[in-house]
């Protein structure tokens, strides 16, 4: 490492893993946290960053992003996605394998790893596909992909339709002790659906996706995790019913973890009114009761992780008739501000819980570097202003995607600096 040492002066050091929450300095040298806490004089030549009034936390980890490379480099690349992540305060991101071709073998995993290293922004950890070609038939080569750098497996974008295949994946993953992440959707119920099923879908004449389309898979997979002992991770939970089922599963001691996306703890289906395609995602935005239940689940830990499901799309693809527009919104550069605005400002959770759900928990569950400010740990650090109010302007995104439902909205909380392996990769 030839980077200059970094001295973060006078920030609020917040590390839920060690229950630290105090004003102090933090010194980074040779890619590691050399010391944290108290007043540190700092070595000669160190770059000093004044962190007064700012929070210094372990770097955020997003376990659910779509980087579109290979296949749709016009929409996003590993490099632009990793840069967007850094701007959003994320030091690590996990890239879903629904690329073209599908990331379902060691060579494809190695490609994503390489692109991530070349980008020199946030760290990029690939998911491998559960099944070859994400076709839901033949189990993919978990062992080889792990050796190439995969950290978890998912067919995200599609559910694992066959309960037998899901059972097998959970069993097989035990050898490697990695999570199997499920996109919960009963396609026979959800088919053709464009938004949450309910009064609004009835009025707008859009085919609805009932909450049960998600919940049927949630309970199926929890039962399979109970049977197999495999580590089940549930992607992008969107309903109150799912929260209740996960709560039940955890009470039984079943190895299940879950994530929720920023849009599902902040927005309701009302955003779809007027056929706004930037409010179209899968699973869809639900009702206020679902949002409240998900917020509560983030608070009590039923939901372990705050993720984004960052899903860039080309402008032309979203500029379409609603039923034809693709699902998904970008989230890396708004997640912190949304999560603080909708969870911390209304005092549903503390900043410490926010850091736990955005950094410590995902790093722990996916066994990734970071997630702590302990001396000697890797220096993956996020510095953010928890009270700065700002207006979302998609034109300023580092992501190629502009498809956000938050354009023009006021958010609270913004990244000031992002440090990956001791290197300053982003500074506002």
């Amino acid at each position, binding site marked *: 490492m030839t980077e200059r040492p970094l001295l973060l002066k006078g920030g609020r050091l917040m590390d839920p893993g060690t229950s630290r929450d105090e004003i102090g300095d933090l010194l980074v040298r040779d890619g590691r946290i050399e010391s944290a806490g108290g007043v540190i004089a700092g070595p000669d030549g160190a770059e000093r960053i004044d962190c007064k009034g700012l929070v210094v936390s372990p770097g955020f980890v997003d376990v659910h992003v779509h980087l579109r490379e290979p296949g749709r480099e016009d929409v996003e690349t590993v490099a632009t996605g990793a840069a967007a992540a850094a701007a959003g305060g994320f030091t690590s991101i996990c890239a879903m394998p629904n690329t073209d071709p599908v990331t379902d073998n060691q060579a494809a995993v190695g490609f994503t790893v390489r692109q991530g290293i070349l980008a020199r922004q946030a760290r990029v950890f690939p998911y491998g596909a559960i099944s070859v070609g994400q076709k839901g038939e033949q189990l993919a080569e978990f062992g080889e992909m792990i050796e190439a750098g995969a950290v978890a497996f998912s067919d995200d974008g599609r559910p694992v339709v066959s309960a037998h295949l899901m059972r097998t994946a959970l069993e097989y993953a035990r050898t490697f002790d990695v999570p199997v992440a499920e996109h919960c959707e009963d396609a026979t119920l959800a088919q053709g659906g464009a938004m949450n099923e309910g009064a609004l*879908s009835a009025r707008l004449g859009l085919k609805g996706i009932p909450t049960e389309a998600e919940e049927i898979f949630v309970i199926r997979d929890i039962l399979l995790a109970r049977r197999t002992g495999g580590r089940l991770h549930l992607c992008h939970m969107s309903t109150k019913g799912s929260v209740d089922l996960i709560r039940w599963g955890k009470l039984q001691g079943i190895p299940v973890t879950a994530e929720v996306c920023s849009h599902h703890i902040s927005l309701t289906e009302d955003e779809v009114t007027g056929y706004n395609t930037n409010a179209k995602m899968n699973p869809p935005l639900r009702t206020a009761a679902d949002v409240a239940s998900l917020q509560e689940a983030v608070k009590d830990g039923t939901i372990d992780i705050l993720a984004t499901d960052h899903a860039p799309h080309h402008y032309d693809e979203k500029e379409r*008739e609603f*039923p034809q527009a693709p699902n998904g919104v970008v989230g890396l550069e708004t997640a912190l501000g949304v999560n603080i605005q909708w969870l911390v400002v209304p005092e549903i959770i503390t900043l410490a819980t926010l850091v736990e759900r955005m950094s410590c928990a995902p790093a722990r569950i996916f066994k990734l570097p970071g997630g702590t400010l302990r001396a000697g740990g890797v220096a993956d650090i996020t510095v953010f202003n928890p009270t700065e109010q700002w207006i979302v302007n998609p034109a300023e995104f580092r992501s190629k995607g502009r498809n956000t439902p938050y354009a023009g909205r006021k958010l609270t909380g913004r990244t000031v600096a992002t440090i990956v392996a001791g290197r300053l990769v982003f500074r506002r």
Partner: protein
Amino acid sequence: MTAPLGKDLLGLAPLSAEQIRLILDTAEPFKEISERQIKKVPTLRGMTVVNLFFEPSTRTRISFEFAEKRLSADTVNVATSGSSVVKGETLVDTARNLEAMRIDMVVMRHPSSGAAQFLAERIESNVINAGDGMHEHPTQGLLDLLTLRDRLGDLTGKRVCLVGDVLHSRVARSNIAGLLKLGAEVAVCGPRSLLPNAVDALGVSVFERIEDAIEWADALNVLRLQFERMTAGYIPSQREYNRVFGVSRARLDRAPRDLLILHPGPMNRGVEIDSDVADGPHSVILHQVTNGVAVRMAVLYLLAGGRPDLADAAKGGEARA
């Protein structure tokens, strides 16, 4: 004066009761034009209207075309099969290209819910929704209202039941919105698999059995089973549907009062409606079609900026305000 309906007609849900009554009242003097030997007035002379149909249509497209021509507008029909849409052109590009040729109005039929609003927000021309997916078909709703009003008078407290495939029906959504605004009581009747799950939120009551609906109603609007929109088996068979929900002479004979029978067409005879009902004394199905032209003339006139109080005079050639 500002246009009394705004720029576009996208549905009946966004309209006020006053705006709906205004359209119906404006349609009254236009009815007479179609009864003349020379069925033409110069009201919209010099205006260009494009009929943009992304779905097959006979009745609605021809009705609009007659309405436009009887008001002396220049009309162009674009159907998807013969257009650059089949070459992959997007809806917004198609519309912007048409607009670049300096048109005044677009009448659009499209398979996607929300397509009319999508278009209206992106072009300056007036947009008239001629049916968007499963969302709304406002001129059909208006002609149904006009027909009911012709026969039943003031619709306040009148009981209208929509029968059949409400789930896939844009006609049902426009009817429900319009009837409720005009003070009618509205019910739906059909197999639950063809009703929206949240049907109660639409402000209507539900009859599980057609016999009960017939006993309750002053008028039945019998919806077409839309097999082309049914992606999976919503009902066991057409034969069983007719047996359980078909509007038949025998069922109507047991009604406590004569019911008006409406159908938006095209009919599946022997499925949702039996021929002796469709062709019977209480059927107003062809009256609906006649009213369709007058209602569409009224909508074209009002969107073009015509003054409602001058509609009668406009027939004689009074210019647009």
